[in-house]
């Protein structure tokens, strides 16, 4: 290989690598390095340590490989370093030191994480196919696919599943914890910064594993307190004729068999709790923005947006559909 083609090869490899790293700074992505929670921050700290060490090791060892090749091409033969010295220092001595550093770092970071806190806010999250049921233990407030949390207060999220294994993951707040049927797992961390963060199911759980997203909304404590207080009671009666008619349609049609709206006869648990659906940002496991037209489309043909979801197409007359949408969007 000539020097020019070699340089070209380096460029070919270097460009996408740099590009990829830059893209990693893409602010839209739910990146584990844009940390907004205590556990994610600790993990990111660990990452920068292992990134620095890893990059250093790669460069040094790859340098040895290239150097050895260039030397070997010339056939320079014996050198001052014996075979055993290469192996003992390169393969055992230096790695042992690096691994010792990493082991200490691992133990130190691990010991700080997921520890019980006395003033923690307790939640129960149940993973369903393919959505998340959320219940605040103290207030009894229930919701789905959106979790409101107060900034700065430790949280303790109990995770359960009555179906298959899922995994609860909000990259910017904490690492993963699997949701295992027959086993109660508890995730503990402190959300630190106000904002809206994407969460997702990380363990393959069947047809719509991809569309099992959720949002975590971290709010200032006072705002969170207001939110909880507002949702502690059942929603008030519909405030328009359309919404009132929509409620009747909802209770008459199959909707109520699968969904819960607190304070009404709708108590189903197959699909998400809709008690405050009007106030949510997204629908169908963070698949669609919550707009009246998206909601209408979703009700009439959910399979188009989330094929395999348990929600069947609901054939409603245009008037009924509009009324149901008005009713649901009014639930805030």
């Amino acid at each position, binding site marked *: 290989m000539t020097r020019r083609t070699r340089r070209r090869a380096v460029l070919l490899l270097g460009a996408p690598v740099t590009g990829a790293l830059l893209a990693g700074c893409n602010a*839209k992505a739910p990146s584990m390095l844009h940390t907004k929670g205590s556990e994610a921050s600790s993990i990111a700290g660990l990452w920068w340590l*292992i990134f620095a060490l890893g990059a250093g090791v790669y460069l040094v060892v790859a340098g040895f490989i290239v150097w*050895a090749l260039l030397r*070997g091409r010339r056939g320079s*033969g014996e050198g001052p370093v014996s075979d055993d010295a290469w192996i003992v220092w390169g393969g055992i001595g230096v*790695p042992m030191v690096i691994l010792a550093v990493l082991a200490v770092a691992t133990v130190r970071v691990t010991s700080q994480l997921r520890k019980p806190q006395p003033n923690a806010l307790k939640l129960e999250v149940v993973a369903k196919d393919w959505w998340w049921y959320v219940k605040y233990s103290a207030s009894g407030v229930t919701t789905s696919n959106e979790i409101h949390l107060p900034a700065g207060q430790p949280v303790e999220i109990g995770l359960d599943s009555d179906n298959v294994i899922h995994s609860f993951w909000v*990259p910017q707040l904490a690492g993963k914890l699997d949701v295992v049927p027959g086993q109660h797992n508890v995730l503990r961390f402190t959300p630190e910064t106000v904002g809206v963060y994407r969460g997702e199911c990380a363990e393959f759980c069947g047809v719509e594993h991809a569309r099992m997203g959720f949002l975590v909304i971290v709010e200032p404590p006072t705002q969170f307190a207001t939110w909880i207080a507002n949702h502690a009671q059942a929603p008030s009666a519909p405030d328009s004729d359309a919404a009132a008619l929509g409620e009747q349609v909802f209770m008459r049609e199959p909707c109520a068999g699968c969904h819960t709206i607190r304070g009404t006869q709708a108590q189903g648990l197959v699909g998400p709790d809709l008690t405050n659906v009007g106030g949510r940002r997204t629908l169908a496991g963070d698949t669609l923005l919550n707009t009246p037209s998206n909601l209408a489309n979703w009700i009439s043909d959910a399979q188009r947006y989330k094929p395999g979801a348990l929600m069947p197409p609901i054939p409603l007359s245009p008037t009924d559909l509009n009324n149901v949408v008005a009713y649901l969007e009014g639930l805030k």
Partner: protein
Amino acid sequence: MAILDRPVLGAPDEKTEERLERRWRDAPGIPGFFTTVDHKRIGRRYIYTSFVFFFLAGLAALVMRDQLASSNNNILAPETYNELFTLHGTTMIFLFNTPVLAGFGNFLIPLQIGARDMAFPRLNAFSYWIFLFAGLFLYSSVLVGHIPDGGWFAYVPLTGKQFSPGINIDFWGLGITFVGISTTVGAVNFIVTIFKMRCPGMTFNRMPIYVWSMLVFSFMVIFAVPAVTIAAMLNELDRLFGTAFYVPTAGGSTLLYQHLFWFWGHPEVYILFVPATGMVSMMVSVFSRRRIAGYVWIVTALVAVGFISFGVWVHHMFATGLPPLALAFFSAASLLITIPSGVQFFAWIATIWKGKVQLTVPMLFTVGFLLIFLLGGITGVMVSMLPFDWAVTDTYFIVAHLHYVLNGAVVFPIFGALYFWAPKITGKTLDERLGKISFWVMFVAFNLTFFPMHVLGMMGMPRRVWTYSNGLGWDSMNLLISVSAVFFGIGTGITLLNWVISMRRSKPAPADPWKADTLEWATSSPPPDWNFAETPVVHSRHPLWEGGVAPVLVHAGPESDDAVRSMGVEGGLEKTSPITSGRDTRASEVLEVPQETAVPLAVAFGVAVFFVGLLINASVVGVLGVAFFVVALLRWVWRTDVDRT
């Protein structure tokens, strides 16, 4: 060190050769195809069959990348996507990587240890037929449209009856058990062959490193495969007969499955990796024109990997909520396994450093392997750190890591091995120019495909998603990956093309085109049916580089006359091979290499019918299969009895 001119082993005169030919050759045409017990034909078959599966699984990957090239894509339905990634992973692990390594082992081990065949030639044929039937069994799911869709790891309860009522998962569970028979039987054969069939003089510390790696491979298989068989069979019992091993509401445990699966699953990574490094050690040494640095270190490292790899399985389960103290132990063990790999790595560097390097195509693949495996090893250390694993497990970071290890660090050496041993396997040398093009396309495209996946994973993209929303910042990188993946496929296709062209055009390869050191190069390319007319006697680790291959009579010792006789041409004419004592390789007994026979095929067929019976839940078919199996097996045992008397 003198590199001798070939051929080292004098060819027998024409008349003797004709008699050998008559004694050893298979029946021509189709009957011979079904009845052969020749380890070379079986080895070739293993390699060709597993490469068919390699390209099928590669195509599945490209279809998946097509779907993921942009957000909210609808080329594939989610069910189809799930089937494809299950098929891709299952095929690559069970039907490509493991059997292709078994194929190379089959072809090379008897040659490298100077034997005329494996210890159990009929068992060898049996293990190939089982592999083929198991592959066809799994792929018949494609024909009937019920492809397994629970992932290559098939976690319960998703794969239990309640959540996967279809026949899809049964294809997987039974297919895995089925192919496991082949792997296990093959491993037993390798162990006995390596222990008892080495030619005189080839003591343990003179065995080629590749043979050592296959020995470690075989022991690991024997201890690991039962775990995955149990994992899959307990689920099949749950599914077919309503037991409740994995049903939590009935007192079962879902995590039990994961423990069993990964007790095989992690050693399996090293089961694939260890022989690949064995190949690398051979190629690095030959193309640096010097003995491998640190032979004893490397062998110790291989054995150490074999042990440590059984103590790290829980690192696949870091996020399942097990107690942190237990996890810390597995975290430390996972860090520790870096050391044997580091030892091997620096032994290779030292070899190259002091060598006289020839950048042939096999050596290019070896260097590519070094650069890729280095990164895969470093990310491996990263994910063994508990909290970091909590962040990246089940994301594209792991997809990147595992492909750096299993594609980069196993498939690259296998491609190198194809170019290296093609002259011996086929008698034709592969084209160097096409080989270089193939390597560079594969190497560049590999890194462009899999490196960005690290970043995607850290940006929050989970694994095994059939699609993703736009606005998450994942689009452009996924497109880059999909385009590069096509180029990687083209790169592998160039080698396939090279194979086809070279087999038609190349002139016959010499016995030892690379001036290499081990015994397979001492016989012609391709070797005759009897491998060696006279059993070689070796006096060093590199018999063709130093010490030479002495004639039979020089070898003195209190061994039996029959055994000595079987070492000579007379032994070849009688279709025997000497059995040697394990430690000091004295010829002590005689192995009669069996005649061609269809019995292994018949036994394998009985097993296949039994599995089909289980699959379609027809007890009549199952019983018929068992009956066929028992009758054929009796015939097999009966023959052995006759041979012995």
